[in-house]
């Protein structure tokens, strides 16, 4: 019995390299020795946890991105990006796959929510002045993450291949054609042809499930890493003047 206990303890300690976090040392170690918790600093400012300061919008975007990833992968199991079959697969998903409709609903509403939350996150960061030095470049990374979020949502919009999708993408991509020099080239590159068709569906699918999520993942990592390196969320300096101007 004792040997089994020692064995379990050995396995446990090979995974978690800290003791029970009820003391300062282990509370620090629990953060620094765990990949996911290491995204956070060991200690955070009390003010940065105030709900009415950040509204948790950055965290919510990541949560919604997680929901989108999980539901998106499940949707891929039931979908083929071909003009002949894409729509049929959506119908099968909605009528025959257990919880298929729910799955699609979750993915759709999460996508809309993510656009809203990411925009609100930017607005929050702006009005709290959280882009100020040393966080200037992280603001730039964030703007690109917003554009990528729009791109992810837009490319996904075509995939059900119904009238709504088809004409929304036709209207949306025609805007690119108004760029006087490169516009038409950009549009045909995006669509793989002069009109929305099989080539567009193939390209949008690849962009939607692979290219854009991969870039979002990379930029989000940089984004969070920089937040951490800059000392967490921007909060008011504790001295009353708050003057650290250089």
């Amino acid at each position, binding site marked *: 019995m004792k040997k089994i206990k020692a064995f379990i303890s050995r396995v446990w300690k090979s995974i978690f390299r800290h003791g029970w976090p009820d003391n300062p040392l282990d509370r620090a170690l629990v953060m620094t020795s765990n990949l996911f*918790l290491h995204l956070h600093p060991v200690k955070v400012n009390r003010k940065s946890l105030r709900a009415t300061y950040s509204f*948790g919008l950055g965290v919510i975007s990541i949560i919604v991105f997680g929901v989108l990833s999980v539901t998106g992968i499940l949707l891929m199991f039931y979908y083929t990006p071909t*003009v002949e079959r894409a729509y049929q697969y959506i119908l099968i998903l909605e009528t025959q796959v257990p919880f298929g409709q729910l799955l699609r609903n979750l993915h759709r509403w999460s996508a809309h*929510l993510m*656009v809203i939350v990411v925009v609100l996150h930017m607005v929050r960061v702006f009005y709290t*002045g959280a882009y100020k*030095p040393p966080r200037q470049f992280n603001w730039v990374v964030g703007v690109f993450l917003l554009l990528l979020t729009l791109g992810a949502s837009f490319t996904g919009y075509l995939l059900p291949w119904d009238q709504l999708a088809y004409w929304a993408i036709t209207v949306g991509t025609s*805007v690119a054609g108004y760029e006087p020099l490169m516009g038409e080239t950009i549009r045909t590159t995006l669509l793989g042809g002069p009109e929305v068709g099989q080539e567009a569906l193939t390209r949008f699918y690849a962009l939607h499930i692979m290219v854009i999520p991969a870039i979002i993942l990379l930029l989000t990592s940089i984004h969070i890493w920089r937040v951490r390196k800059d000392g967490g969320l921007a909060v008011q300096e504790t001295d009353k003047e708050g003057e650290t101007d250089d």
Partner: protein
Amino acid sequence: MTNQSPTQRPESFSETARKTKTYSLVELVKGPTTMVDRGPDETIFAFPIVAILELLLTLGVIAVLLLMSILVNAPLEEIANPTVTTDPAKAPWYFMGLQEMLEHGHPTLMAILMPGLMVLFILAIPYIDNSRKGAGVWFTSQRGKRITLYTTIYAVVIMPLYIYFDSTFPLREILRGQLPDFVLQAVLPALLMGIIVVLPLLVLMRINPTPREFIMTLFTLLFVSAVVFTLTGFLFRGPGFELYWPWNMPGDYSPWDNL
């Protein structure tokens, strides 16, 4: 410890160091040290409070999404048919601001130049306002709060008015033939937009704004206008891309079906 008299006390480390070590000035480095001039430490251990908060937030977000997904189905129309155009044909809702702008001027101005300028402006914000003052405070100051409020009211009033009058009495159509097309479609709308943006800035200049206040006015104008244009395009545009009240759309068209 207690029976040691002061004279017997062994020499402390610092005393030894003072006697044996010499110091010289190597270099002066400018810049604040981490804790100099800061107030008392207001930090707490992130574990477990942050982990718990994030877990609760995750559960809450998933609960809301599940509820929404149980109550409302994602829209699905007929299979795509390139020969039958839907009326109206709308882009996804977050691009409806852009599509709405297309109604008010030359496409290159409205769909390329203006959005391009807006993105560039947003990217440039931290490089225009590069002071550290007021970071971490909503609206920076009471004055900032008022500036944001007044700018919001201004944009909420003037932008719908602009959209309404430009759609009902389009100067560009009334003056057609009297002025070159380029002037009507590009110069005139750009001028009007320019005036709408510059007016509040002129008022702001009278109170000697900081770069932060200047940029807050511009950002508020941009954000509120984007919301107004997006809502107009998404909710108030019906068949023929005409303006209607969202609850009074002709036929069986409902703007919400476009989600």
